């Protein structure tokens, strides 16, 4: 891979909770190349959303603490950069976001037009740089408003919203779930970002709608050369849309591989178990014994060791560093498995 667009190195994030400090991210590494669709796969509570939010810089300020690591975007460490500059140039412009739930992400009381134009006022690619913190007294220049509105209508056509000019005057509740997610995709594309962070964007949708949205999203980002970080807990969805897949377990990334190699040669014991637990047509069902560990007192070393068949003393003492198995296929495990998928579970 050439120079990555975004590179996360050794990111540690803690959350202060009632039960103690939860070590939610434990030295996570992640690279996203230009124009690449990367799937971030893991079970609920594994830190997918926290990682996505850390990249965007929107972790809850009271509860979350970044203990170490860096998030490099175009060579700049976002965690240490001037927050005003990051807000002005990166968040919502260079990196945009598609939320999981299209039902609660719009304000119910304003027409869609107001909400999209509010976004464009600050985050349009035509807006100037370096204006400092946004102020409610700043005008929206009329020239730019017209140009931005044209861009909005074009993008709504691109996401296949029928009659975009009329659609803009409607309120969010007049759109179905699939349509709202199309609007969200349009809003993520409008600032012409380099990277879109999509946080489980199809989880709330039916399969037929999901298939339409995945196809649309993949076509649009490939056309425009935008990178995507696509978090999901559904391996099938990841297979549909991603070029490369990164698996997380309990706040540690365990395996990263190109999609084809990921499904044909999974090497980490957790990845193999996860793939084996997908229901098969012949009705065989295999689960992963044990439960996901508490993040307040996580197991030392590799956090999967209490549930792992291959665990040894070194797994319990130190976390394995990522090792390359094949081109672009990294595994963080002392005992990676070579056998074909499913043969050990």
């Amino acid at each position: 891979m050439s120079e990555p667009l975004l590179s996360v190195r050794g990111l540690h994030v803690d959350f202060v909770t009632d039960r103690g400090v939860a070590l939610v991210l434990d030295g996570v590494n992640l690279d996203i190349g230009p124009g690449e669709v990367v799937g971030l796969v893991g079970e609920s509570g594994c830190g997918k959303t926290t990682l996505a939010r850390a990249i965007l810089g929107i972790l809850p300020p009271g509860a979350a603490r970044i203990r170490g690591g860096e998030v490099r975007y175009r060579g700049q460490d976002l965690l240490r950069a001037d927050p005003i500059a990051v807000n002005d140039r990166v968040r919502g412009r260079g990196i945009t976001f598609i939320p999981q739930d299209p039902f609660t992400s719009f304000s119910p009381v304003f027409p869609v037009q107001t909400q999209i134009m509010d976004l464009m006022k600050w985050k349009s690619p035509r807006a100037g740089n370096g204006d400092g913190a946004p102020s409610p007294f700043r005008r929206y220049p009329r020239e730019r408003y017209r140009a931005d509105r044209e861009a909005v209508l074009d993008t709504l056509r691109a996401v296949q919203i029928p009659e975009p000019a009329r659609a803009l005057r409607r309120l969010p509740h007049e759109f179905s779930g699939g349509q709202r997610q199309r609007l969200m995709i349009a809003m993520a594309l409008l600032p012409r970002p380099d990277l879109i962070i999509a946080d489980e964007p199809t989880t709330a949708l039916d399969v037929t709608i999901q298939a339409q949205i995945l196809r649309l999203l993949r076509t649009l980002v490939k056309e425009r050369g935008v990178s995507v970080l696509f978090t999901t807990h559904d391996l099938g969805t990841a297979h549909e849309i991603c070029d490369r897949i990164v698996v997380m377990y309990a706040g540690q990334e365990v395996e990263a591989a190109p999609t084809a190699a990921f499904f044909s040669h999974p090497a980490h014991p957790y990845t193999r178990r996860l793939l084996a637990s997908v229901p098969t047509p012949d009705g065989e069902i295999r689960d992963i014994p044990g439960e996901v560990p508490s993040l307040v007192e996580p197991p030392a070393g590799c956090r999967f060791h209490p549930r792992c068949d291959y665990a040894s003393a070194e797994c319990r003492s130190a976390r394995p560093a990522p090792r390359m198995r094949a081109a672009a296929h990294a595994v963080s495990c002392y005992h990676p498995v070579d056998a074909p998928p499913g043969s050990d579970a």
Partner: protein
Amino acid sequence: MSAPSSAPLLEIVDLVRYFPLRNAFGRRTAWLRAVDGVSLSVQPGETLGLVGESGCGKSTLGKTAIGIYTPTAGDIWFAGREIGRLPPRERRRVARDLQYVYQDPGASLDPRWKIVHSLHEPLKIHTRLSRTERAREVGAILSAVGLPDAHLDLYPHELSGGQQRRVGLARILTLRPRLVILDEPTSGLDVSVQASVLKLFRGLQETFALTYVFISHDLSVIRAMCARIAVMYLGKIVEHGDKTAIFEEPRHPYTQSLLAAVPRIGGRRVTLDFALQGEPPDPRAVPSGCRFRTRCPLAQDVCAAEEPALRELDGRRVACHFA
């Protein structure tokens, strides 16, 4: 049909359930036709899968079948007896044989009751067992769902989500029901958790000789769990029959699209070829004739004029003029 010819445990005949739609003054303006003439039979000991997208009426069908909603029209035969129009006192006696499992059975536990209290309650209401007999019954069920006796003295918040789910199931099983309706029991779960929940359902079915109606929108789960399936679209069954026949060779265009939309790991990306456009129409304004015609690639004039009836075809029943 290819099902065994023994007497069905549950038989639904032309079941209809409408909900009134009211305007701001409380006057009825229209009917929402949630379930509109559905006939199904469930054989003892089997797992019948009920598939469809959200809003197609699958939950309403399940709830009407076991008496949570009263049917607008149609018959419900349970173990040889019509139960849809029984007087309340007699209806209550049937209730213990029919249980409904919501998406998260753990969420229906009272947070201020100890587990032991929650598990005894159904037995107090429906049986005349003494306290020690109840305790024996509860202990047996608790070990069947894989929980230690020590959990009886805990409050729901002291258990993990998975354990709460097991307690919720135990609570349903204390009455030893014969038919259990599982309504989206695995949606929102991770695949590994889903696998353990499905395993649990299978084990319980064997131990307690249960009959399941498995409602889900997830076709891979339905395929793994059920021998026969029924596909619903806007309040109607469009295809019904043997699982293998339907999954190998779906005949209704809606079933075909539904199966084509499911990502298949390792194969070609299915979304590249996915052709179905649009979204299901508003159930308040159902299209005339065949309800699927507004999205159907095969639609002709006859589809708007005439509603296709379910007809026998290759080991399943299909409602389509062109299947």
